[in-house]
């Protein structure tokens, strides 16, 4: 067997190969890293937006048959000062155009009736912050979300989660139009907060 047939790569061949491969691999690595970072970020945004959207629609479906005259909001200090309520936390009639985080109403039962008494018992939407979170614009429980909590539907002593991982919930009645806004905050890689919201508008048909 001759010496020439057993030889491997020459140093020159290896150098040429490395010179060809290294820049290509560096570019590919950079592209892959940037792309995967963007994909993860896009995925998180899409997931949050979809969750907010679905939750807002779900809350809207419950609120839609609500009787306009039965809508109530919880009184705050300003309401007491303005003689709109006797004490903070009392259920009072909503002020046109004002935004609140809690809402109570009664719905049409769905049975055909000319009787105004045919309404459900009071139903309330209440925002409850997660136990490990504090209202401080920070991710206290380390799950990437800021000040998140749940929107609960309370009725007849029952509690149902209508939306989770949301930062806040707003209800606003203007005329017969009810506006529901759900919001969420996400911690980005750099540590900044990216906020999202989803709005659902309803025309309340029942008096």
């Amino acid at each position: 067997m001759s010496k020439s047939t057993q030889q491997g790569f020459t140093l020159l061949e290896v150098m040429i190969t490395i010179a060809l491969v290294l820049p290509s691999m560096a570019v590919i690595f950079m592209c892959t890293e940037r792309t995967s970072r963007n994909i993860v970020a896009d995925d998180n945004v899409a997931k949050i937006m979809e969750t907010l959207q679905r939750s807002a629609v779900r809350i809207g479906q419950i609120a839609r048959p609500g009787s306009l005259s039965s809508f109530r909001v919880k009184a705050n200090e300003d309401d007491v000062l303005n003689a709109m309520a006797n004490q903070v936390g009392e259920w009072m009639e909503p002020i046109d155009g004002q935004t609140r985080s809690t809402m109570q109403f009664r719905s049409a039962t769905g049975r055909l009736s000319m009787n105004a008494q045919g309404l459900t018992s009071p139903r309330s939407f209440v925002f409850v912050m997660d136990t490990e979170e504090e209202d401080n614009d920070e991710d206290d429980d380390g799950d990437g979300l800021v000040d998140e909590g749940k929107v609960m539907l309370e009725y007849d002593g029952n509690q149902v989660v209508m939306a989770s991982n949301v930062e806040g919930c707003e209800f606003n009645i203007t005329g017969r139009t009810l506006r529901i806004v759900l919001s969420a905050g996400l911690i980005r890689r750099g540590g900044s907060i990216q906020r999202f919201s989803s709005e659902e508008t309803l025309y309340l048909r029942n008096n």
Partner: protein
Amino acid sequence: MRELPVEARPDPRTSERGASLVELTVMLVSVVVLLAGALSGAVSHSAQRRVHGEQILAMAACRNTLEQLRGVDFETLPSLHNTGFDVPGTNGQPKGLPPLEGDSDGLPGRIAVQLNRSVSGAVLYTVRTTVTWRGATRGGEFSMECLMGERR
């Protein structure tokens, strides 16, 4: 023991020979092409997600505008024909979706109100909300339609 003829013996030169530079380069090019393919697949998946996100914004804006139109005075409904509306962004900020270039009012949404039928004083309109936008990827169009009559 009979020896194999010389032609039948394995050729040590071919079995022990390494890959040539050409073979190695072809292999590397193949790897690069495969990686580029996988990367472009991931990018198109991401782009699809963005398109989906834009569609969600357009859909929500169309639905909310229709609900707001239910709240306006029924007599004024036809006058809203061909008026525009904005599409809020992911955080409710204005101009969430950019309109097409050359759009007259700079708003991606458009309301169309057309008479559907009118019977003995009762009027029914077909109301359509359409969003046409120039998206982060390829843009798109979404529309929603419903009938509206006067509530008595």
